[in-house]
Structures are given as C-alpha cells and as structure tokens.
C-alpha cells in the first residue's frame, strides 16, 4: 500500500513537470485512461500478492503453533494419565495388609511406569479404618504401605525410590462409621516425590 502511494505521487509530479513555468498552461494532455487502469491493475496485483504472502506466513505460523500446542497437550494428557496411574489407590480387607489379587494389576501398571522413568520416586502412605486401636493402626498402615513397596521392589525397583509412611486412622478418606466408609479408608495412597515431570509412557503401551 505504501509503495503504490509513492508511485501515484510520482505520476502527479511528472504530469505537472510537463506544464512549464510562466506560459499559460497548455491544454491538458489527453489522459491515457488505459495506462492508468493498467497501472491500477498492476498495483492491485502487487497488493494482493503481498497480502497472500502475509496470510500464508500467518497460516503457516498458526499451523506450527497449533501442532506444537497439540503435541504439548497430548504430552500433558499422557503425563497426567501416567501420574493418575501412579496415584491410583489400592484397598485392603479389614485388619489385613495383603495386596488383593485384583489390585496386583494396579501395581503392575505403576511398576511399568517406574521402570520406564528411572528418575521417578514415589511415596506410599498406608491408612487404616477407625476400628483398630489408634496405635495399632499406625503399625497396620505401615504394613500396608510396605506390602505395596515390597511388590514393586521384589520386581526390580530400587528400594531407595520408594518411601513409605503410615497415617494409621489419622487421615480418613471418607468420614462416618459405616462399612462403606471403612472400606474407603483401608488403603494405600501413592504420591510422586521426584521426577514426575515429563514422564515417559512404558514401551508397549
């Protein structure tokens, strides 16, 4: 647009130059309407070409950003999924610390992620329902946390990567004194303590 303005001004100057100084202005030269139209067409095409070029750069840029965004989103979702797999709780029978048969699969998924991410460290917190004594429940929570740790360590995870704590009955997940609440509270919780950014999915998943 700027360039076409300059050209128009140049044309005007050239036209005025042809008029001379003092003598009365000669009758205006007949305007060559065709050449003006041609120039206009030429300038338009330049402008359109410029615009098209700008648009394509913008589109390319947007496309690039989109793809980055999509990739990041996908990675974020994947990391989130992996973190959720790590965080999935396991539950226990009353006064028991054995991993239930159905819960071994939950631990197997964590195991695969721990194997694929050697920087990843976790903390397992064992919890109890309110029915044992306050102090016994600390011991029970300790056994439950260590049952899950033992499962992972006995399958090749370095013991130093898995920390355990017991909260006994001090941090119930569900309140109330019903069998339903108790079942919710007899659990291990899993928390990432280090290396949780940029988790890699285990191969084969």
């Amino acid at each position: 647009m700027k360039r076409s303005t300059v050209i128009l001004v140049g044309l005007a100057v050239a036209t005025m130059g042809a008029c001379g100084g003092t003598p009365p202005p000669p009758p205006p030269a007949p305007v060559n309407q065709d050449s003006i139209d041609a120039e206009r067409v030429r300038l338009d095409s330049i402008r359109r070409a410029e615009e098209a070029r700008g648009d394509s750069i913008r589109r390319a840029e947007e496309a690039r950003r989109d793809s980055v965004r999509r990739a990041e989103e996908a990675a974020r979702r994947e990391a989130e999924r992996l973190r959720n797999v790590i965080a999935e709780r396991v539950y226990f029978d009353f006064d028991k610390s054995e991993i239930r048969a159905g819960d071994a699969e939950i631990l197997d998924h964590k195991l695969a992620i721990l194997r694929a991410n050697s920087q990843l460290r976790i903390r397992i917190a064992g919890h109890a329902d309110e029915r044992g004594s306050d102090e016994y429940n600390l011991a029970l929570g300790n056994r439950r946390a260590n049952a899950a740790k033992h499962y992972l360590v006995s399958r090749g995870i370095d013991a130093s990567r898995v920390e355990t704590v017991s909260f006994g009955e001090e941090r119930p997940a569900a309140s109330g004194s019903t069998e339903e609440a108790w079942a919710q509270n007899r659990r291990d919780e899993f928390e990432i303590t280090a290396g949780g950014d940029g988790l890699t999915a285990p191969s084969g998943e």
Partner: protein
Amino acid sequence: MRVLAVCLVVLACATLAGAQDTTGVEGGVRVGIAYRPGTLPAVVVLPARADASAFRSVIARDLDYSDLFEMIALPGYDATDMFGSPADSVSAPSVALNYALYRAFGAEFAVQFTGSGAAPVMVLHRVSTGDLLRAFPLDTAAMARGDRFYAHRLADDIIRLTVRATGIASTQLAYIRSGEVRVVDWDGEGDRWLTRTGGQALSPEWSPDGRRIVFSAQEDGPWRLFEFDLSRGATPRLVFGTGTGLNFAPAYSPDGSELVFSRGTNGTSQVFAVNLRDNCCLRRLTVGEFADNLNPTFSPDGSRIAFVSTRVGVPQVYVMSSEGSDQRLFAPFDFGVTGASHAPTWSPDGQWLAFHRAVGGRFQVFVMDVRSEQVRQLTSTGVNTDPTWAPDSRHIAFRSTRTGTGQMWIMDIDTGRIRQVTRRGGVRLPAWSPNLPAAMTSVP
C-alpha cells in the same frame, strides 16, 4: 445407723448409678466387679467460713473421688448451725469437736476448718476414738490465688493419715484432642493445651518423676518422639534416634532413664529401646518378619515388658524380659474366639495389667491379675479403650463413648464406681500422671 440419720446423704445413690458397668450385662458378657457398700470408713467434712469454702469443696470432692471413704454429706451446710458454726472468733479458735454427735452419725473421721481469720487451720479428727490426728495451718495466700493443687495435696495428706493409702488427688491426666497434647486435673478442672504443634500428636506418657511427657507426632509423614520438659516449659525435644521413619507408642522405664517404643521397620513394627540419659544406644528388643510387636509397657520393677503382638494373626498381649528374651503369651485368649487385644499398661504396684479387647466388635476395658493371669472385663457400655493407671493402682482412666462422644472416664476397679472427667468430646489416649511434685502444678 448411717442410713437412719435422715439428714445425711450417704452417696449410695451415686455409687449405684456409677456401678452400671457391674450390672449392665450386654451380649451375654458377665462382669466381675464386686461392690461392697458399707465397708468404707465414713468421713464428714465440716463447713468452712466463706473465704475457705471453695477450698473445702475441693478437699471434700477429692476424698469422695478417692473411693476410700463414705462421705457424710451435710444437708446444705450453710444452714447447719446444729453442728456448730465454723469458728470465726479471733480470740478463741476452737478445735473441740462433739465427737459423740459425729459418732452417732457413723463418722470415723472428721475434717474441721477453724482457727483465726489470719491463721486458719484445718484439723483432722478420728471421731471413733476421739483423737485429734493433725492440725494443718493453712496457707491463706495459696487459698486466695485459688491454688487447687494446694488443696489436692492436703487431701492426699488426709488420706495418708487416715486410711494409710496413696492418695491420687495431686495428679493430672494428659490426653490427645485435635491432634495436640492436653492436660486436665484428675477432677476435670484446669483442662488446657500442652502442645501447639499444629501437627498430629498421639500417645502421651508421663515420666515416672512427673516432670516430663513424651509423645509421638507427625507433620509431614515421619512419626517422631518428642519429650516435653514440664519444669522448663521449653519446646519439645526430639528423642534420640527417632527423627525418621515411624516411631510411636512410647513408655518410660521405671527409673525414667530409658524409653521403649514401637518402630516401623521394613515391613513390620518392632519394640525398640533408647537410652534417654545419654542420648544413645538405640537397640531392638523384638524381631519378626511377618508379625508386628508394639505398645510396650514396663513392669514397675523394670524386669519385664508387656506388649502387643500379631504373631498369631489377631493382636494379643505378650510379655518378655526387659532385654527382649523369654517371650510368651501373657493375657490368655481363645484362638478364633477372643477379639483383638490392645494397649496394655502395667499398674504401678505391679499387680495388674489393663488393656482393651474387642467383645462382639466393640472394645472393652479388661484387667488381668498378673500373678494368676486371670482376666476380667471392667466395662460393657459403649466403646471403652486405652486404660491408664492412677498411682494408687486402683483407679483407671479410659476413653469411653458411653455418652455418645469420646470422653475421658475414671473407674475404681474395686467398686466399679465411675465418673466422667471431660465434658468435650474428641478425647483420645489418656495417660495418668504420677503424684506430681509441687513445681509441676503451679497455676499456669
């Protein structure tokens, strides 16, 4: 004779109400407390002048709560001129007592408040023989500032001089509410915070000299043991060797130099000991790859430790030497029938072991005679847990839900008489102090 004295209210009614655990039989459980009314010496606590009446009330209540006397209550003692007014006369304070009159009411002992305005005296009489046992000049400053422990200590003196027993009036109980350690006087007064950790505290225990309290606490996962020095009021001190991992349920050795506690190992919890005097020498007393061993409690002679073990699956009470050897079952149980047993605690005289055990899915407080290893159930109403012994080895405090909320209660195991100590719920893990030295009980 006592009953016939119509103006006297022997607290038999209260006693019967309190003994509900002896009569309330739930779920086919038989309870073995024998209450024998009428065998206790009766005491009358005479009226005091106005400025000593609160002081007198504390002493009268202490004698009542000791469960060592039958209290002869005076009917609205302001109007009891028939007994003779308290001697306000400055010129001739009298300690004379109409022994014949009180003998007629069945009193064995009488506590009299007399003396001049500036020099009040509490006089202890043996009515039955007409003897003046002791005159206590009273500390007016202590009375004026409402020093309840001054009164509690005098009550314990009365108990020693009359029935030659250990009084427990100058004691407190530590317990947990809202994750913090609190203390309350044995009569329910003076309930207050001891810690303000903002974290989570459990399992307070008093040192044998009453100067320290140990407890376990966690803020971010690890359970550490801390010792609180009551005489210094300092911040709690971390117990050697307990900075990481799971350390809980501590108990002092009888001389206070050692602490035994439960410690999480790689998979189970085991009993450990640590030397408090030299801050050293963490040692392990139990082993077990598949069983927890926890909740240790020393015998008062220091030779044995009772503890809970899951070696047969269900937690039960075992005993071993203080070095960890000679482990065996302590509180008998029927395999597959008897419920889980927890929280053993040895009485200061060595004769009893109290603990709680599941009966029909609810915990009840039990006591075992250490010599015969006979077990009897003390409670049956509500859920009753975590017993702790008074220094007299006759009273226990425990947590009970019998009113619907978790409160601290005290029971006289001889008579089954019980009373409620706290009025706000959420009480956990009470721990009874020894008789406290004066320095520990100054008004906070």
